[in-house]
């Protein structure tokens, strides 16, 4: 009898609590939006692979959080801030979207962050990497999840300066991201005792890098740093090889995704140093997740795609723990958590929106060292988050 009473009570409690929880998920659905480049030059590093990654995270949570279904939408922002802003506005106003992630061009992320702040939604850029996201335009509802230009530059630049490569020349993509990468790398190079002897800005996207590379060659700098991404990096490396530049100078791409190395080929990319937030073959956890991804996508995940998985997974966990999908509460919960999954290790979300976590310094294998397709990197060292992520920018008022 007693037992029966207890169970009735428990059932009532459960019903009540689930009722109260229901009330706190807006529109009775938690909706994730992947906004990225599905057709342009960044569609291999983000694109459909990011959508797959987000779907994997949702499946891992059982497709539900707080008893409500989790849904996924995605769209192509064509790397244009105005297109991204319009899509996001539609998603927030009519589409019931609670969190938007990816943004392979920083300018698109910046455009959406402001709208999300007004509409009280969460933005988690995974491939939008400029530190501008953490500066003056930062918002309390943004989490730059995977990495940023400073952390990337710090890893690669430090390693090379330490090897005695003191003079640098930049070949920079002429938009927010490229400028940010150049500025952040310059800071690190100077702090470590190196110097920057010059830079050229190339149009984005570019096909022919010959003239910029020849200028870089004439500068006689030890290192030619490529502050660009995707196909621009691929073409620049290819052409640097063609002009025989790689024989006397080191070409250092500051942002390289595994998809880039895949299309350049190991014979041209071998020996290059690079920093990444994630490499599929790092340990058992990363391998297990990546193989699952590979089965669906037929390519190994880039750091950007893996970051979308991690961002989505942790967002959903935070919704679960906070008991609501209200943006401020979810962000507070994310800041409380230690992020540790197949992708991000020892991560702590800072007030300015930077996820500080361990990064990897990698070197591209020689064709002989590579045992299988996608076996491209040697892990040279693990870079502690505190050493490579930038200090909080005083211009960011998010925490205040």
């Amino acid at each position, binding site marked *: 009898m007693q037992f029966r009473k207890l169970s009735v009570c428990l059932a009532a409690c459960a019903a009540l609590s689930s009722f109260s929880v229901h009330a706190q998920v807006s529109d009775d659905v938690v909706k994730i939006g992947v906004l990225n480049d599905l*057709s*342009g*030059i*960044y*569609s*291999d*590093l983000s*694109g459909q692979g990011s959508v797959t990654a987000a779907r994997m995270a949702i499946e891992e949570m059982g497709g539900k959080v707080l008893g409500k279904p989790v849904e996924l939408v995605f769209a192509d922002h064509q790397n244009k801030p105005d297109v991204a802003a319009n899509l996001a506005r539609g998603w927030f106003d009519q589409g019931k979207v609670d969190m938007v992630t990816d943004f392979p061009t920083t300018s698109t992320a910046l455009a959406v962050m402001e709208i999300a702040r007004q509409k009280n939604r969460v933005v988690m850029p995974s491939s939008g990497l400029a530190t501008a996201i953490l500066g003056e335009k930062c918002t309390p509802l943004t989490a730059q999840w995977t990495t940023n230009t400073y952390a990337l530059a710090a890893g690669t630049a430090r390693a090379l300066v330490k090897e005695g490569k003191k003079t640098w020349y930049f070949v920079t993509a*002429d938009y927010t991201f490229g400028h940010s990468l150049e500025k952040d790398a310059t800071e690190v190079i100077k702090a470590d005792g190196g110097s920057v002897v010059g830079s*050229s*800005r*190339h*149009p984005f*996207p570019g*096909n*022919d890098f*010959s*003239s*910029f590379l*020849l*200028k870089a060659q*004439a500068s006689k700098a030890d290192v030619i740093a490529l502050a660009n991404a*995707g*196909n621009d990096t*691929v*073409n620049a490396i*290819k*052409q640097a090889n*063609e*002009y*025989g530049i790689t024989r006397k100078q080191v070409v250092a791409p500051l942002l390289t995704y595994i*998809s*880039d190395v*895949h*299309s*350049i*080929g190991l014979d*041209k990319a071998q020996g290059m140093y690079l920093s990444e937030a994630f490499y599929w073959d790092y340990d058992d956890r990363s391998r297990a997740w990546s193989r699952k991804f590979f089965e669906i996508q037929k*390519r190994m995940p880039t750091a950007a795609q893996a970051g979308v998985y991690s961002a989505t997974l942790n967002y959903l966990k935070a919704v679960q723990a906070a008991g609501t999908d209200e943006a401020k509460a979810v962000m507070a919960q994310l800041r409380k958590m230690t992020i540790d999954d197949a992708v991000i290790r020892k991560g702590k979300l800072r007030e300015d929106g930077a996820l500080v976590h361990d990064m990897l310094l990698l070197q591209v294998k020689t064709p002989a060292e590579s045992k299988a397709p996608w076996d491209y990197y040697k892990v040279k060292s693990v870079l502690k988050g505190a050493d490579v992520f930038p200090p909080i920018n005083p211009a960011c008022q998010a925490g205040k």
Partner: protein
Amino acid sequence: MPGGGRRATDETHIMFDIPMQSLLAQLLVGLINGCFYAMLSMGLAIIFGLLNIINFAHGAQFMVAAFLAWMGFSQLPLLLGPEFKINFWAALVLAPLIVGGLGVLLEKTLLKRLYHLDHLYGLLLTFGVSLVLEGVFRHFYGISGASYDPPALLQGGIDLGFMYLPLYRGFVVVASILICGCTWFLFEKTRLGALLRAGTENPKLLQAFGVNIPLMITLTYGFGVGLAGIAGVLATPIMQVNPLMGANLLNIVFAVVVIGGLGSILGAVVSGLALGLLEGLTKVFYPEASTVVVFVIMAVVLLTRPAGLFGKEH
């Protein structure tokens, strides 16, 4: 005083703070780009001259030829065995023929229905075709594309003193000047060329003389597309083979055609080469303007000579 002497020569070789060496190097690089502009804009000019079609699919056809070269080299042997490997030289002949053939098919089935309509319809159709082609290749091969090495014969390079010139790039300059020269000769100096030019002026009258105008139009379109194909194969070892490689070039090439004069072969070639050089120079003195300079010149030309530098007013 060897040191003092050297300083003096260095000074004489410096112009506006830019060392002579790098100026020469940039001009050469500009010339190489100019060769691609010239080859592509020549194809466009030929097609426009006879068909009155603004061939927006030109960039996509250039890309398809590049992909065919890459597939023949690295995909076909995987599918059918190593004896089916198609090397660069074979691809340089085969890919333009295949792309030109596809062009003939396009003309026979779709384009020929549009001749009596406004230019705009041809432009829309070919634009649509280029979007479809790009979409198909993006679907199957992704956007990063693939690398293709120059043929063994043309690997390495020569030290010119002012720069290290990759042999292959030198080959591109020679090959494209040859191709442009031959095409010019064909159109301006042969009987076939005379017929084609007559067809441009007054097709009805020419048909009355017993010339098979529809066949001539079809073959001309195929030929123009084939030129895009040759440029595409020549570009594979330089650029990453990817679905957007043609689209990136096409904007500039259209400006080149407008500057040279729509329909003028000589105009297309000369302005292609000249604009390549000019772009190279801009990259030395003010790199930020290098993407706009061609369009600024286009605007100036349109204002002062609306028919282009070499075009005839109708």
